[in-house]
């Protein structure tokens, strides 16, 4: 506060925190997609970034080109993402189950390249607005301006989390998925079909990816090939919470989102020696700091190693 030109008001801070939560929710949606696939199949899915991209474009196609109702388009894009996830699982991932993690990562990277380039080939490389009903409207809460799109993002993420909680806690398929994640052999022994579990987890990841893509593109954002790259920023969010933990994904998303917004607000004033654009590196700095203290993330499972 020593600087004379510095005028940080409580309202500006509140706005920053709020947009940090909104950005964090978007990361959390992407990270949840990573986590559910990893939990069920032990695959670190780089193709999640292309689910995000394809979801955004599908929604744009239906809402803008075909002029469907936006909410119908959103749901249809999620269904499209789910189908895409299932197809990837059915055609490719199933064949390499149990291979070393590196081979699995690279298989999903191959899928990422194919899907990203086909998407750009179909829809072209330019950025375009999603024309969502929220637009750039804001709600005034005293002196604090809150973007409607951000409010919706927070609401949708909360709804997705609630659905997650109900699904995993209170449905037989959800319980089967948790059992398979815990111990695949034991789950098979009590008659749980691991294939269905894998298929469903990829479908959920695809749908979540599409939802994340639409949320990222709504409001001030846009649909374009860069959407997939934003999804890669969710890596720190996913990993600092722990690869297996949905709760960790949300906490990680919020931490990264808030840290990014706060860095953008405060770092040029208080630590200019860190250089311009530090908010783009901040997620990785936080991730490294947390992982060095807790190598399996905040809520991750410690791997048991035997000789």
């Amino acid at each position, binding site marked *: 506060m020593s600087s004379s030109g510095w005028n940080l008001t409580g309202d500006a801070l509140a706005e920053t925190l709020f947009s940090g939560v909104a950005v964090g929710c978007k990361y959390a949606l992407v990270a949840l997609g990573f986590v559910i696939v990893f939990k069920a199949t032990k695959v670190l899915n780089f193709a999640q970034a292309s689910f995000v991209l394809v979801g955004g474009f599908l929604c744009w196609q239906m809402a803008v080109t075909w002029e469907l109702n936006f909410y119908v388009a959103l749901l249809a894009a999620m269904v499209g993402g789910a189908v895409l996830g299932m197809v990837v699982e059915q055609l490719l991932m199933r064949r390499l189950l149990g291979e070393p993690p590196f081979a699995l990562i690279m*298989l999903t990277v*191959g899928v990422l390249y194919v899907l990203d380039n086909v998407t*750009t080939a179909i829809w072209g490389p330019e950025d375009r607005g999603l024309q969502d009903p929220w637009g750039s409207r804001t709600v005034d809460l005293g002196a604090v301006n809150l973007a409607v799109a951000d409010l919706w993002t927070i609401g949708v993420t909360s709804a997705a989390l609630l659905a997650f909680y109900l699904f995993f806690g209170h449905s037989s398929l959800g319980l089967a998925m948790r059992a398979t994640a815990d111990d695949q052999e034991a789950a098979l022994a009590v008659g749980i079909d691991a294939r269905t579990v894998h298929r469903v987890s990829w479908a959920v990841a695809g749908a979540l990816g599409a939802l994340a893509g639409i949320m990222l593109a709504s409001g001030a954002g846009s649909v374009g090939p860069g959407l997939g790259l934003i999804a890669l920023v969710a890596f720190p969010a*996913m990993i600092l919470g722990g690869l297996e933990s949905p709760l960790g994904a949300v906490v990680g998303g919020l931490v990264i989102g808030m840290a990014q917004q706060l860095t953008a607000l405060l770092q040029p004033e208080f630590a200019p020696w860190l250089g311009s654009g530090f908010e783009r590196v901040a997620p990785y700095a936080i991730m490294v700091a947390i*992982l060095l203290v807790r190598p399996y993330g905040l809520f991750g499972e410690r791997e048991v190693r035997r*000789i």
Partner: protein
Amino acid sequence: MSVLPFTSRSAARGRPHRNMVLTRADDLRLTRGPWRKAFAVLLVVCYLSLPHWYSDASLSVLTLVAAFAIGSIGLNLLVGYTGQVSLGHAAFVSIGAFATSALGDQRGWPLPAYLAVAVLVGLLVGAIVGPFALRLRGNYLAIVTIGLVFVAEHIYRNWESLSVPVRGTAPTRNAAIELGPLDFGKGLQFGDVVYTREQSLFWLAWALVALTALVAHNITRTRSGRAMQAVRDHDLSAEVIGVNPARTKVGVFAVSGAMAAAGGVVYSFTLGAVDYHELSGGRGLFMSITFLAIIILGGLGTIYGSILGAFLVIYGQRFIADNGADAPILGIPVEKGWLSTGELNGVLFGLLVIGFLLLEPRGLAALWLRVRRWFEKWPFSY
């Protein structure tokens, strides 16, 4: 052993067939058997004669292949031999490229000096990053190393004297590429015979590939190489039998970083200026992925596989970029269809990676093993 229907002389003497055993002396030898020596001679002949009957444009592509081969050999030591996945390899490559620009181009240092500095900085940064591998494993390590390319991007973005800030490019055009009396940058000259810059750079780059391959081969066939493979196969067991995993992991990160930096120096020779967006940040991540794909397609845990992979991926990509526009796909030339050549390259790249992982995870190196097996087993080669 005499009950076996096919008794060879060695079996009669109570020893397994020569293809089944590998003595320690063989394992330590640089080249095994006369065939490999003959093959090495053939390679040298190719190396010396290629620039005489290849166009300069093709030669500069081959020089780029060499740059990627050097970096891939380093990455293969890390991933293929030691089992530590790194997605930050492009950051190490960028060290070499920017050393060429900052020291060679802008300060006029000679080639051995800036190459040595690049290699040393690569070694040092590798040794700094290495300890992360002691704490983090598998997927966690892979994600944390992504951080490297973003940190590198941040440094280059803010280090204004290093690159032209507006366009983000660092010139390398005027870097001196001389080694004693041999001036590769202007073109070699022996008496009346004058060679072009491309021809000379080809010789320099592939000599560096050979040197890197020799260093890597020597590492892998000695104690440290066996320690690396023990750590890859099971690091706890390796520790139990007396391998120091910490030293091994940090060491291999350092060596791989140094090789990547050397690759970066060669990489910058083929370009007039280095763009930091290519080697760091989001596209840097894709560059790292390209390196990983090279060693998968070539063959994990083989040195010549890294070179084959670099050839397949980089030469293939450049070939399509240069000639793909007219290639008919489903009867429609690419440029008139809905795929651009860049997108065609990306799709093919992805399909290659997927195809190799599903059908031949041991890479191109294993295709040769298959051929050899077929002939060895003939007439029962099924």
